[in-house]
């Protein structure tokens, strides 16, 4: 252990030498590792956004009841009160035609101009019903069967779709983690084998001088960690660029998309990708080393 601490400088120099000895191949290893970690980052980001959407939509737990045409507008308030007294309903609020239009204008932003093509306001008034999530089914049934309500629009379908997509992303994420793990492992063990082959005379001499295997192997583990970490950093920077670019271009056009805070997402990814790469580098290198038979 003491020998280890005393030789940190030597180990770092050695791993620099090992990297330089096979520079081109090592550069490609870094780029390759960076790319697959980047893909992993994309999938993790997608899963993260999906999860957040599901949570948010669940919290929303809101359905809209559209009024029948026959219903006189004075009776809307009474109906809203009636619905608000139902089991599982937290509150109701009437959104009239004007407010419905304003909301859509906000959503469309720049594109709201197309609404000017209509002579009349094309939007209908509706009652916004906030409910408890677990009572969703019975509330929808009850509201549907209420006189004066034409139809009910809920976000259940959307919710389920997003849930499905998130689930698929999650599976994809696990597959990606497996793929990244295996690929990194192979890249690393190949790299380490090559390094050891290039240095076989030196390694043999060190063995004859009594050097412990860990001392001989550590520079290679360090090299593996450094190269993989470098790949992780490249991946983290690329994903930060991607997130920034995506927010700049999507953020404006779909303001209702409840995206996570940009900085939080970037912070998360720039922390996680290097951390994952560090772990991969460590275990990958150990794996690479252990695949080489320890001889006298």
């Amino acid at each position, binding site marked *: 252990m003491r*020998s280890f601490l*005393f030789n940190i400088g*030597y180990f770092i120099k050695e791993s620099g030498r090992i990297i330089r000895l096979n520079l081109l191949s090592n550069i490609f290893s870094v780029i390759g590792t960076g790319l697959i970690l980047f893909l992993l980052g994309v999938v993790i980001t997608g899963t993260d956004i999906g999860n957040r959407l599901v949570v948010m939509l669940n919290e929303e737990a809101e359905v809209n009841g559209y009024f029948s045409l026959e219903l006189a507008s004075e009776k809307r308030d009474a109906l809203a009160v009636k619905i608000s007294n139902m089991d599982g309903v937290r509150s109701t609020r009437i959104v009239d035609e004007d407010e419905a239009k304003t909301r859509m204008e906000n959503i469309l932003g720049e594109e709201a101009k197309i609404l000017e093509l209509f002579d009349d306001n094309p939007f209908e008034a509706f009652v916004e019903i906030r409910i408890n999530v677990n009572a969703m089914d019975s509330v929808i049934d009850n509201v549907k069967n209420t006189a004066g309500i034409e139809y009910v629009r809920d976000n259940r379908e959307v919710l389920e779709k997003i849930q499905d997509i998130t689930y698929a992303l999650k599976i994809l994420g696990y597959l990606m983690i497996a793929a990244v793990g295996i690929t990194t492992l192979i890249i690393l063990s190949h790299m380490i084998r090559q390094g050891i082959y290039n240095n076989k*005379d030196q390694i043999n001499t060190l063995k*004859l*001088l*009594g*050097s*412990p295997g860990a001392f001989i192997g550590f520079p290679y583990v360090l090299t593996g960690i450094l190269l993989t970490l470098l790949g992780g950093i490249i991946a983290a920077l690329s994903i930060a660029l991607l997130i920034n670019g995506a927010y700049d271009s999507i953020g404006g056009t779909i303001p209702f998309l409840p995206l996570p805070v940009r900085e939080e997402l970037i912070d998360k990814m720039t922390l996680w990708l290097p951390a994952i790469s560090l772990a991969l580098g460590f275990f990958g290198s150990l794996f690479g080393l252990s695949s080489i038979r320890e001889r*006298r």
Partner: protein
Amino acid sequence: MIISNDVSLIYPDKTQALIDINIDIRPGELVYITGPSGSGKTSLLKLIMGMEYPTTGSLSVFGKSINNSRSGNIRKIRRSIGPVFQEFKLIEGRTSLENVMMGMRFLGAMPKQMKTSANEALEKVGLSHKKLSRVENLSWGESQRVAIARAVARKPSLILADEPTGNLDYDNAINILGLLKSFMNENTTVIITTHATHLIKDEQNATFISVDKGRIEIERR
């Protein structure tokens, strides 16, 4: 310190390199292993370093058995040995100083102390002025001195030198033997192999192991 009982070494190709070797080498001894080329001198050193295992018989070095020992044990034994290989086995692309330090890095010395010892060793072999030269640029004799410096800087209990007089003329051979002997003390055994018996015919206070076709004879004088 080195004790063997009826040790034989047969290589995979059936070469009988050593037959019924019985030796008992004590701390502080000076040992010459002589014999013609191909008689088994290097094979004996390889056994002591655990580079080969006895085919039959038992061998222990520093009280630890060499027979089928785990590689960790062999390495431990090797850390107390200062080997000067016949072909030196210096590490190319590095300076003399780096080579000497390379043999010490895993022995637990502080970096400063390590550097001091390495410099002292190079000084002793008269090669201070070449300490920053890469070893592949050194002459044969200079390389040999770096190899000796690497061996002795480790402060080993046992110095093994295989054919150190091989390529040298009489004067230089005597000088190198003198240098190696100078590292011998009550705690440090020095074992030297040579096929040039005329160089040591007048030596006293030493053990002579003469090898012939794998069999040995021991004389202490």
